[in-house]
């Protein structure tokens, strides 16, 4: 995937992307919640 073959490095990329998305989605959903 994208020139990478080590599953641990791919996992780090994927988890990094997912955690950014998690922060973004959480922020949007709870934008007006206390």
């Amino acid at each position: 995937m994208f020139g990478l073959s080590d599953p641990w490095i791919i996992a780090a990329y994927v988890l990094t992307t997912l955690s950014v998305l998690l922060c973004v989605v959480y922020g949007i959903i709870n934008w007006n919640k206390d």
Partner: protein
Amino acid sequence: MNYTLLNTIIVIYVGLIALMGYLGYRSTQSAGDYIVAGGNVNPFIMALSYGAAFISTSAIIGFGGAAGAFGMGLLWLTFFTIFVGVFIAFVFFGKRTRTMGNTLGAMTFPELMGKRYNSSFIHMFSAIVIFVFMPLYAGAVLIGAARFLETALGLNYTTSLIIFTALIAVYVTTGGIKGVMYSDALQGSIMFFGMIFLLIFTYTQLGGVTEAHTALSDMVSMVPAKLKAMGHQGWTNMPLFGSTLWWVLVSTLVLGVGIGTLAQPQLAVKFMTVKSGKSLNRACLIGGVFIFAMTGVAFIVGALSNVHFMNTEGKTALAAVGGNFDKIIPLYIKTSMPEWFAYVFMITLLAAGISTLSNLFHAMGTALGKDIYEQLNKKKNTSSRHTILFVRIGIIIGIIVSLILGYQLPISIVARATAMFFGIAAAAFLPMFMLGIYWKGITRAGASAGMVTGTFSALFWLFFVHAKEAAPLGICNAVFGKPFLISSAPWPVVDPILIGLPIALIITVIVSLLTRPLEAAHVENCFQGI
């Protein structure tokens, strides 16, 4: 070197910093304003301020350089800094810390802990740990930033150190946390755009994402023999499981810094500056994207710099800088980016160093002025004016001690000192902080025992077992006649956080289960609104 362009950029930058300090100074009227910005800071400022305080020169230069040497395994730290350092910190720690801080009227981390457990001992001990150990971290960041100024502007080291320290001293002592947070938000914005440009430019220059990664994978045969013997398997692979390099990467760089983030007093205090849980939700979005732009970009670009040096000089990044990790990112910027970007990036790095340092000095100042001074003068009626005065004295002492360390410590200490302070802070503070906001059953004795054993077990490990510190410090050698106590693998490379934190956590829980609980009314009051 285009001095006109460089000077223009510097003058604009220093002018903006001075303006931020002035805006903070103008709106600072009370001790509350000075220490937690009156609890009324907007989420954009808070998130950028948190991020800019978190990410220092050490993260970009030190850890980015480590990625140049060790490879993309450093991306695990990016994952931890976003998932643990932002998501868990904001959602699971931030809201409860803010609510409890407000209920108890706490303005600093030691004060929050002291009031949560109704204990002067916990209050004082936490403040002392901060006041004693933080200058080490601040001194190290100071060295990194001053060395960068020295290289970039051709000034001598002493002049760089003094100019840089004076700049920070002025706005931290005048503006309080509002000045710190406003300028952090400005530094954060500069850092964000600088790093995004760096990422795009790097991938474009190397022919695209897949092409760049493939070229880096193809360099596996060029791994230096010394690193190969330690477990290095190429820059797009993790080190060999269980090897020395694997332990350094996973225990010190990824877990040590990734988990240590949760118990950083200068970051925890940011939660008490926002006006609502809503602000923290919004800050989570901004913080996640920001931290990715910092650590993600630094580590990806650090690793990919190998391809650039291979294409231009036919060697690895480490070989191009003569073996010094800290020079990889600066040299990469200098040789691959347009001149104007090199100047803007220099400002980005100084911004990162300044924002982290100003927060550290602020935390040290409040530890002395707000925590230690007020605790010692409990019976006397201390006025707000006195508190601010003693906070300023604390900041000045912190700055002087850090400046002295700036002269004394060697440059290679920067990344190590960062991990050292993160480890000690996590072992000392994390169990009582985490359980304090979640578990009503934790007792005063449990929290105290965990804090003391955590602090001392982490220090013991640093002084006597962890080879990287124990050997150069020489205390173990003086006492036991050998550089470190346990020589069998993997112990000399296991980070103190993996020893101190579990011990502290277990002790906190066991002692809490065996000792007298806190008064029920006090506990209910602490958890009001949670």
